């Protein structure tokens, strides 16, 4: 039985109302969910509120889970959607512009290339917080949820080229910041 099978079993029990299974899943992923929200929102109190909402939503939607991806990805997707919804309600979220994509297409990269270039995670984490929120979210989707570019594009309503370009900009920006550090 894989880790994901155990998580699926826990979700099935939560769907039937098991508090015990909910606690097990919560204790397993609470740090990831909280950290994920914190990285996007950059506000501890807000991250706690959104992480709480995320868990309530998980309990609520347990019976609707489709075993397509892993349970972990499903949980993080809920967390990310909650964060983005919150940012939109605060008008702190601007949809990324598709207009410049053609100019940068050749220089674009994929998420793996981006991750490979950073070995010092602690320094990287510090620099990520300085990125605009939209870029942070895409970065979390690529590096945290390990989503394919096409999935990121689909979920954020962007073109794949635009996601590539954004990741290229993120790498450029982070490199500059890390070189200057």
């Amino acid at each position, binding site marked *: 039985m894989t880790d994901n099978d155990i998580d699926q079993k826990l979700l099935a029990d*939560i*769907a*039937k*109302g*098991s*508090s015990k299974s*909910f*606690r097990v899943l*919560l*204790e397993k992923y*609470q*740090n*990831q*969910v*909280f*950290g*994920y929200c*914190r*990285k996007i929102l950059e506000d*501890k109190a807000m991250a*706690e509120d959104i*992480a*709480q909402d995320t*868990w*309530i939503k998980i*309990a*609520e939607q347990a019976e609707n889970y489709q075993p397509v991806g892993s349970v*972990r990805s499903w949980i993080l997707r809920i967390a990310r959607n909650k964060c983005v919804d919150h940012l939109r309600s605060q008008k702190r979220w601007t949809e990324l512009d598709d207009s410049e994509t053609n100019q940068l297409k050749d220089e674009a990269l994929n998420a793996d290339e981006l*991750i490979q270039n*950073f*070995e010092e*995670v602690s320094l990287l*984490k510090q620099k990520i917080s300085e990125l605009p929120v939209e870029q942070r979210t895409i970065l*979390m989707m690529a*590096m*945290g949820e*390990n989503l394919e570019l096409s999935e990121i594009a689909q979920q954020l309503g962007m073109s794949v080229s635009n996601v590539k370009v954004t990741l290229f900009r993120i790498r450029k920006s982070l490199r500059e910041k890390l070189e200057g550090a």
Partner: protein
Amino acid sequence: MKDDKDWFSEDAPKGFADRVLAKAEPMLKEKRSLNQRRWILFLLPSLAMSAAAFFWLRLRSDNQGAAFAKIDMDSLEMGQMLVESDELTAEGNGTDQFELLADLDVLEDFDEVEEFAKSESQES
């Protein structure tokens, strides 16, 4: 990068899990009772169908038993009627009809029957 799946993890604030659980508990309770209701709704028709099938089979077997009992009673009554009719006949002729029939079987033609009948009447 040590663990790219977990690099963003951060310790959740103290008591976070308890707070979430307290908030989620009413919903989980509702799910539990809904689940119980689903089971009852699922089991009730099955139980009703089983009970109906049981009573139907029982009723059917009772009816069959009654029908057989009736046939037995009819046979018994018919037997009794035959015996009574034999007795009446025997009384009317003054002879035992069964004996007469047994004797008749031995006889081969009507002449002999007639002779036999004459001899019988003379004797009586």
